[in-house]
């Protein structure tokens, strides 16, 4: 048991393989190249958001508003292109600015006003959700310039463009976390914010930046989603935060911050993606999927806490 927990990333990949085998036995169309690419396409927005959400969680925070942000950004972009006649670059710019604004709001509430992050972002997520429905009056918006769908649906060779975007985000994330001072500070703040502050580091700036990064990556995910679906719908992002959160925690990121690896998060994203897809393939309904996802989140968190407990036990054991 201890060993399993120690090599969590590896265990998740093993779990992934087992899940794939199970689904392959249950559905003939599951293990095909086509479906494989579909899964990859499906997980991209979630994966990109998960990298952002991981930054936030590493600092000891959490962002529950990412799902609603995807909806709102999608709707606003859709309105810009379909109703206001804006070009793609302008619409993309609007999406980024909007993402930035939402990130700043989350950050101000958590870092400056000091509202517990779970509550603050739950609150903003309802504001964003309500705004998306208000703006489009609950109706889907379509009719974008033709080229726009090329981003989300096109491929370079066999590899879909969104996948390339995801890979770039993962590599950039890994680079920032592992090789820059800022990345080191992210971990330090999550492990012990007061000691970090006393070492002369601006911890507010670090946490603030994490929320901004998360929101900007969410904006990218929103653009990809809108382009893939080719229609702005207020329900697009609903519940996405649940998938993202589960993937990040399942991937071994410590819920209270300070510990976690990008490779783990990628594994978590793959598991959630394969499960979502596989459950549809074997004909499991929406409701069953919801139950399973809730169970996985709790399972992942239990592992997380167990790991902390074992670490604490070891600490006592070593203090001879």
């Amino acid at each position, binding site marked *: 048991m201890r060993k399993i927990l120690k090599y969590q990333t590896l265990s998740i990949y093993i779990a992934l393989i087992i899940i794939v085998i199970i689904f392959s036995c249950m559905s003939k169309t599951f293990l095909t190249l086509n479906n494989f690419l579909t899964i990859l396409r499906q997980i991209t927005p979630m994966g990109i958001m998960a990298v952002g959400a991981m930054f936030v969680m590493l600092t000891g925070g959490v962002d529950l508003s990412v799902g609603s942000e995807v909806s709102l950004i999608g709707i606003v972009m859709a309105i810009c292109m379909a109703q206001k006649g804006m070009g793609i670059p302008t619409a993309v710019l609007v999406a980024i600015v909007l993402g930035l604004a939402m990130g700043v709001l989350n950050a101000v509430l958590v870092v400056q006003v000091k509202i517990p992050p779970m509550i603050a972002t739950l609150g903003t997520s309802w504001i964003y959700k309500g705004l998306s429905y208000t703006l489009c009056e609950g109706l889907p918006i379509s009719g974008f310039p033709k080229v726009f769908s090329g981003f989300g649906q096109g491929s370079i060779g066999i590899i879909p463009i969104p996948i390339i975007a995801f890979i770039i985000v993962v590599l950039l994330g890994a680079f920032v976390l592992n090789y820059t001072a800022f990345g*080191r500070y992210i971990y330090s703040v999550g492990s012990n914010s007061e000691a970090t502050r006393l070492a002369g580091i601006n911890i507010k700036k670090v946490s603030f930046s994490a929320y901004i990064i998360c929101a900007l990556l969410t904006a990218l995910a929103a653009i990809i989603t809108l382009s893939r679906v080719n229609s702005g719908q207020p329900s697009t992002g609903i519940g996405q935060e649940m998938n993202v959160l589960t993937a990040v925690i399942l991937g071994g990121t410590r819920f209270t911050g300070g510990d976690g690896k990008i490779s783990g998060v990628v594994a978590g994203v793959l598991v959630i993606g394969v499960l979502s897809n596989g459950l549809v393939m074997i004909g499991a309904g929406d409701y069953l999927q919801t139950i399973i996802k809730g169970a996985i989140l709790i399972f992942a968190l239990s592992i997380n806490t167990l790991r902390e407990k074992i670490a604490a036990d070891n600490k006592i054991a070593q203090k*001879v």
Partner: protein
Amino acid sequence: MDECILQLKNVTKTYPGVVAVDHVNLDFNPGEVHALVGENGAGKSTIIKMISGAIKPDEGEILLGQSDLTRHSPHEIRKRGVEVVYQEFNLVQDLAVYENIFLGCSLRKHGVLLDVKEMVRRSKELFDSLGIQIDPEKKVSELSIAYMQFVEIAKAISKNARVLIMDEPTATLTDKDVGILLDIVRQLREQGITIIYVSHRMEEIFLLADRITVMRDGEKIITLFKADTNRKELIHYMVGRELNETYPVRDHKIGDEVLRVENLSGNGVKDISFSLHRGEILGFGGLVGSGRTETMEVLYGAVKKSSGKVFLSGQEVDIRNPRKAVKKGLAFVPEDRKALGLIMDKSIKNNISLASLRKYEKALVINDKKEKAVAKKQISDLKIKTPHMDQLAKNLSGGNQQKVVLGKWLANEGSEIFIFDEPTRGIDVGAKHEIYLLMNQLAEAGKSIIMISSEMEELIGMSDRIIVLCENEMAGELCKDEIDKNLILHLASGEK
């Protein structure tokens, strides 16, 4: 000899890679104070944990009277009258003193209603029997640290303890409170309770103990009657080598003024003024809670000041946050190094480089070689005992942890003024000496040091000058030739 109440027979406990306790035989008599001494890592804590049932020995048995404790759970062992008072308090801060004492076994009348009156009365009785004055209806959070400790002891006694284990009970107490604690322990001995007393402080061990057992590297070295031994011999047994407990000599070269604080207020403290010179060690004495740490928090920018001025080399500066303080050359070595000084779940290397990380950055990327070189230098300069620099901070002993905190500031070459808050708290004798040497080296190299200490000997032995605080205000300042233990106590107690 009396029939012993508690006996360890051939007890062994191993962890991967270490033998924490190696075939130890120990016996404790009823009504004796038995001191357990040894450096960190000697095996004292493991023995305590095995007696209290927190961990089980691999071999051997622990007998309480006739029954073998190794088969029982910690809860059952407590029921049999073995209580531990740990360094970290297990009190509920927001509850009243009597509620804490009766926590989990509150008295009731008519089966439902809490019998507050009776609980308060019994608490009072309990305190009287120990010879201490505590109002049982006060909230625990309103008590001083020393009195919280006393409540903790009273709580343990209220459960009819036969054996009381005290783990470093005086680590956080000032000399005055230590005196009260010693009286309490003597009272308990009178009542026939066996006390196992773990401490680093030689002074109180010799005041209190009947017998002393020395541990080293998991082995019991010797058990001595107090009358048959002395400090020097004991230290010799502890470290296995001769060690001078006197404070290392330093070449005093006190230079220009580097820091002047004028009427600093905020964070509870009022009107603190002092100056600090190059090459000087300025001691801060006073009782726990007299405002010494609070003063330094304001000076360091960790807490906002409400008024007052700070000058660095004659220039007025506004230190609004720790970041500013670090930029201006201040370095803070806090008392609670685990919570404030270190990032426990990160490596030695990461901890050492934390304050100076930006300096190794080139085009956004941390220069790995440079960072490692700096960490390596600090590890060897400070003689941090570790197999490698990737060892996590939490796996180090107290002395080595303190060195890592110091290494963090030395790696940041701009550090000029070092604030040490209780620099040797919870650190064993050998490592203590090393910390003193390091402080001396810093002073000799022209750095300036502020040292808060509650250990009178350390304060007097290390300081060039001493400021004494009392109830958040200045009580006095003593130059080198005025320094005197009684005078400091007098000032700290606030007697006019």
